[in-house]
C-alpha cells in the first residue's frame, strides 16, 4: 500500500531559547494505520504533530501528504490540505462561549462559502451533518448549550465531532486524554478507534501512557529529546526499551 504521509528529515528549532525540538525525524504512515507517538513531556510530540499540518513552521525537512508537499504549499493549497487533516487537542481548544453546534460547524469552515460563513450561515446539510456527528459521539442533546457547560470528556467529544466535520483522511490527536480521568479516557479513545476501523481514517495520536498506546496502537513511534528512539509494534516494547524511552527511574503506570 502507498504511504499516505511521509515525513523526511524534519527538524524544528525554536528561535526563542534556541531549542532543538525535533532532530532529523523521518517516518511514514500507511493509510488506515493507528500510529501512537509516545515520549516524555518535552520530547517533541506536540511539535511533530503541529509541524505536519504546519501550525508550526518546520525549520527543515519535508512532509508529503498523499504525495503533495505540505511544506511547500502556500495559501489556499495549504488550507485545502489542512481540511483533510483533522486535529484533536489536549485542552480541547473549543471556543468556550460559543454553542456546541457552532463549535462543531467551525470544522466546516474550510469547505463552506466564505461569504455565508461571514454572517454565521451554514448550509442545511452541514447543520444536519453536525447534529449527526454529535449524535455519533453521544452528545446530540447538548447541541445548543454553551461549550463551557460541558464536562471535560464531553468537550473532547465535541472536539472529535469538529474534526469529523472535516471528513478527514488523517486524524491527529495531541494527547487527547491527558486532561481526562481514566474512565473517560477510554471512551474517548474508543471513538478514535471506531473512526479508524469503521471509516478507515488514519490516526496519529500522541499519548502519555504506554498502557493506552499498547491497547490502541497498531504501531508505535517513541521520541526522546526530539529524536526517534523506537519505531515498531506495541508488543516489541520490553523493559529495556521502556527504560530507554522513559529514562532509568521510570515506573510503569497502568491506565485501566
Amino acid at each position, binding site marked *: 500500500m502507498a504511504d499516505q504521509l511521509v515525513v523526511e528529515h524534519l527538524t524544528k528549532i525554536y528561535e526563542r531559547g534556541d531549542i532543538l525540538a525535533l532532530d532529523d525525524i523521518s517516518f511514514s504512515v500507511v493509510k488506515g494505520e493507528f500510529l501512537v507517538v509516545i515520549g516524555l513531556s518535552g520530547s517533541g510530540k506536540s511539535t511533530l504533530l503541529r509541524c505536519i499540518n504546519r*501550525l508550526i513552521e518546520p525549520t527543515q525537512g519535508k512532509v508529503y501528504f498523499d504525495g503533495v508537499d505540505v511544506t511547500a504549499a502556500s495559501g489556499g493549497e495549504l488550507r485545502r490540505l489542512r481540511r483533510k487533516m483533522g486535529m484533536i487537542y489536549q485542552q480541547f*481548544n473549543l471556543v468556550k462561549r*460559543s454553542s456546541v453546534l457552532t463549535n462543531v460547524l467551525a470544522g466546516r*469552515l474550510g469547505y463552506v462559502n466564505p461569504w455565508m460563513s461571514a454572517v454565521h450561515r451554514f448550509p442545511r446539510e452541514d447543520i444536519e451533518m453536525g447534529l449527526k456527528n454529535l449524535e455519533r459521539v453521544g452528545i446530540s442533546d447538548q447541541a445548543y448549550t454553551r461549550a463551557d457547560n460541558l464536562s471535560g470528556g464531553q468537550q473532547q467529544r465535541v472536539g472529535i465531532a*469538529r474534526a469529523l466535520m472535516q471528513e478527514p483522511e488523517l486524524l491527529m490527536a495531541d494527547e487527547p486524554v491527558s486532561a481526562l480521568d481514566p474512565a473517560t479516557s477510554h471512551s474517548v479513545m474508543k471513538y478514535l478507534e471506531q473512526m479508524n476501523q469503521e471509516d478507515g481514517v488514519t490516526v496519529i495520536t500522541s499519548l502519555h501512557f504506554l498502557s493506552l498506546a499498547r491497547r490502541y496502537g497498531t504501531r508505535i513511534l517513541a521520541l526522546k529529546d526530539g529524536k526517534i528512539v523506537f519505531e515498531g509494534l506495541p508488543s516489541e516494547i520490553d523493559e529495556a526499551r521502556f527504560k530507554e524511552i522513559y529514562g532509568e527511574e521510570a515506573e510503569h503506570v497502568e491506565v485501566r
Partner: protein
Amino acid sequence: MSKSVEEMQALRFRVFAFFLDWASWGYIAYGIMYLLNSYWYTNIHYYGRLSVPTWGWPIVILGTLELAAISHAFGHSIGLSMFGLRLVTDSFTPPSLGKRWQRYLAWHVAVLSFPVAIWFSTQKSRLLHDRLTGTRMVLVKQYKDEIPILPPRAWYKTNRGEMSVVLIGVTLWVGALVTQIDLHTMISRVSTSSYLWKELLSPHFTHFITPDPALQQSIVSGMIETIFMALLATAVGAAFALPLSFLGARNIMGFSPLGWVVFTVVRGVFNVVRSIQPLLWGTVFAVWVGFGMFAGVMALGFHTVAALGKLYSEQVEGIDPGPLEAIAATGARRWQVVLYGVVPQVIPSFLAFTLYRWDINVRMATVIALVGGGGLGRIMFYYQSRVGLLPDAWNQVGAVIMTIIVVVWVLDYISGRVREKII
C-alpha cells in the same frame, strides 16, 4: 546562557543603575535647590522655582555626577540594589574601604579612557577601574554560589531604604511647596466659604422641569442632552474602535514586518490620542465644527475610540490561543479564524468595557460644556457664572450637581449590574 551574554547583562544593568543613581541624586539636588530658592532667595525671578542662575548649571550637573560616581564606586546606592548588583573582590569578599576609594578615583580615569580601554582590552566587558582595583561588580543572581549570604539588614540600614526615605522626604516637602498647600488659608476661610456648602446642599429645583427663561433650558432637558451626548460618543467610538482594535493586537497582526508596522502605528496613535483629555480635544473640535454640543460629542467620541481601542486590543491579546489554532487547522481563512475564534471570546468583555466607557463619558459630558456647551454642564456653568448676579445662583448649581449625582449613580448601578450579568 553563555558567559558573555551574562556579562553583557551585568554591564547593561550597571549602566542602568548608574543613570538611576544620577537621576535620583539630581532629583534630590533639584529638591534642595527648590527649597533654597523658596526660603532664602530674595530675587523674585528665582523665588519658588526650580531654577538656578546660569552659572549654576555646571555645578549641578557635575556635582550630581560626582555624587552618583561616589555612591556607585563605593557599592552603596539605590541603583545597584535595585538591579541586584553587588561589589565584591575577585575572591568574592567585600572590598576594604581603601579599595573603594581607589575605585572612586580610578573611575574618573576609566570614564575618560573608556572607549580606548574597551577597545584594546582582552577582557572586553571588564571596566578599567574594576581591573585596577581588583574588584568586580556582579549580579547577585548570577553568582549565587560564590557570594556569601549576608543576613538581611533592617530596611532603614539598607541603602535602598535610606535613599528612599530621603527621596520621599524631598518629594513631600517640595510637593507641598509646589502645590501651594496652605492649611492656614484653608482653615481661616472655612467660615467665609461655609455659605457655599449651605447653598449647595439646599438646592433650588425651580427650573428642574420648567425651563429657565434666560437659559431656555430645564435641568431635565440638560440631563437628556448629557446622556445622549455620552451615548452617541460611546456608540460612534465603539464602532470605530472595534475594527481598529484587531489591528492593534499583537497576536492578530502576527510577526511579519507589515503586521508589526500596522500594530505599532495603531497602538501609538491610540496612546497619543488617549493621553490628551476629551476637554482638550473639545477645544480642537470647537475650531473644526464650531462651538456646540457636536464638538463635545466629537471630542468624547474621538477620545473614546482610542481608550476603547486600547482596552479592546488588550482583550484580544489576552484570549486563549487554543481555539484559534484549532480553527486554523480545519483549513479556515485568517479572517474566519478571527470571526469564529476571537470574536466569541471577546464579545462579553467588549460589551462590558463599552458600558463602562459610557459611564465615564457621562461623567465627562457633564463638564465638556466648558468647551462644547450643552447638557447639564452648560446649565451648571451658566449659574456658576451668575454668582453675585442671581441671588440663588449656588442653590441652582446645587440642584444641577444633585441631578448629576443621581444620574451618574443610576447609570453606574445599571451598567454595573449588566456588566456582572454578561461577564
